[in-house]
């Protein structure tokens, strides 16, 4: 199984190093199991175009059967913040059905995840944090994949 994930990741890496959609760039993939990408959002006043957001992808040995863990990172140098979105918590955890075992299928890949997240941010009109954000950040101990999100908001 690990063999399949490594092979697939290598192929994806090769493709990504080719061309990528605008706003998405690969930062590092030295560790095949953990990648970092930078994302920027064109055309949305909530997200200034020069501001970039750092995504961290972590792949398990059963990728692509199992979804990767994708979170936003907050860094000091270079400066990266967590984007303001009603489905993104301040600890970087993203509430997206695509990333959950219910909504994930191997037909997606790193690039498509980036595109989905980018479009989720680009189409966002509410500059707010999710409800219960502070409580969640304070008390959450689970990995994102173990959290049972309730996907109830199809508009964002």
């Amino acid at each position: 199984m690990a063999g399949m994930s490594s092979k697939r990741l290598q192929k994806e890496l090769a493709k990504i190093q080719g061309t990528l959609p605008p706003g998405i760039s690969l930062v590092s993939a030295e560790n095949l199991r953990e990648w970092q990408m930078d994302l920027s959002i064109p055309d949305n006043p909530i997200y200034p175009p020069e501001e970039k957001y750092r995504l961290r992808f972590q792949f398990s040995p059963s990728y692509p059967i199992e979804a990767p863990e994708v979170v936003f990172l907050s860094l000091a140098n270079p400066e990266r913040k967590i984007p303001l979105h009603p489905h993104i918590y301040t600890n970087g955890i993203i509430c997206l059905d695509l990333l959950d075992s219910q909504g994930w299928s191997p037909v997606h890949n790193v690039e498509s995840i980036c595109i989905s997240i980018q479009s989720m941010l680009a189409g966002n009109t509410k500059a707010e944090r999710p409800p219960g954000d502070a409580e969640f950040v304070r008390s959450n101990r689970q990995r994102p994949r173990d959290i049972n999100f309730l996907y109830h908001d199809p508009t964002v």
Partner: protein
Amino acid sequence: MASLPQRRPSQRRPSPEEESRASPQRNLDTSPEAQSTTPQHPQTLPINHQTPVSTGEERTDDVKTPAPSPTAPSDEVQTCWICFSDSTEDIPGQTSPWRDPCPCALVAHEACLLDWIADIEAPAKNSRARTLRAPKIQCPQCKTEIKLTRSRDYLVDAVRALERLGARSLTPAALLFVGGSLYQSSLLWGVHSIYAVFGVEDGWRILQPLFHNVLRAPLEVYAASPRDAADKLLGLVVDHLVHWRLYVGVPLITPMLILSRTHLADSILPVLPVLFFATQAHPRAEPLDFTRWPPSASLCFAVLPYIRQAYNVGYEKVWGEHIRRWAREVQPRSTQTATEEADENGVEGGMLAEAIDPDTDDDNIFEVRIDGDLWEEWGDNEEADEEVMEPLQPVIQPQQQEQAPPLHQPPLAETEADHAQPPPNIPDNRPPAAARPAPAAAQPHNHEHRLAISTTALAETILGALLFPTLASLSGSLLTFLLPKTWVTSLPVHIPSANWLKSLKGTDTTRVTGLLQTKWGRSLVGGCVFVVVKDAVGVYVRWRLAGMQRGRRVRDWNGVGGVGVRPSGGDS
């Protein structure tokens, strides 16, 4: 060209590459055959994006094509959408065969597909994916169901279906179990209460239909003889229907007792006696006889809430202000200003917690916050955000000793002396018993405070509520000893008398003619007396406490040492 993919016998849906498979060349998007399919490109762009270009070739394919021309699988490069390897990397002996299980252009290795399907059917991430039926496996792009050939073992299927059913019904079963336990314990306590208030003979008469069902053998014991089982079941159903008031009413006594201590049901309970009057069944079609003495048990208990409220109002009017004043006097002076403000807002006495917002709900003035039991009266109510000093608790109590005791009596069936109605009107009688809101003292009707109920106070309330019938019964028995014999025993004396007092004593015609002659009547009256006495004692104690408070003096140190105080003119 490179190694051809392993082929299945051709069940492959045609895809554009197959059309051009006749030609040994690969399909380039410039080739004429492929161009016939280009109009379909836009549909499958997303797929095309992820198709790796490791082979360096453009792929035109992966397009749904309407032109079916089944041809043998070609040497076209296929890419498994799960592992992203393509047919160029196949090793003939090792790579598992390619499969194309759905109309869209996604193809994959069989091993990859089986892996993915296994994950869907038995997800590692547990509970949420548990459904009643096995989840359907759909292609992520075209949503067509992917079919597998599996050997069908009906036993395995049946067992798995049962397992899923079992997993689903776990919660309802657990709830049922807990509910059943509560029901049985309520029932048992209701029986106890009825016996306490009604005494031995009447209690037995009321509860008799209930008893043999409470202790019957469960139905499954009769499974050996189906006819017996059916009989028993039928008998059980009929019994329940006929005596429904027993089965519904007796268990309800317990929660009603408890609820009457809180003000959760206060809005409903005063209404229930009206319902009772409206729905009472009169076996002899006589109207509710208000003029007959002694009144029927159901009438008594139905009227109880009103009596209680009247008492509450009277008590508040007469003693309320005094009690508040005395309570204030016991408090340190720094808190008195706050409580005065609270009092001005019409807060019921006992709102000594200055941190509390004054309760302006007018209804609550009539509410009885009763703490019925004598030993709880002096208890310490540890409501959390009460800043009331503990000595104040007793001061507050009498305010709230209202008619809890008499009114706590459980709704009881009429005695047969009054009506020949076999099923007791238990639900109808319940309102009287229930209508005693009595949260632990010093717990204002403030929503904030409801949240601060300490478990000790809760336990006190519940236990006090549950013990009340026993206390009333004991008070009634006490009356038996204290009152003259003629009042409390039933004698067949035939002295007609118009004097209501005489009839109270039971010197009228029939055998049981006085309220005090029936056990339940004594319990009722005993309970009332208990409450009144307790209130009186409480008032007295508070008054004395306030008085004693005023007389306190701090004593100087008389021995060796100490600073000594110059005698001053003032006095504290």
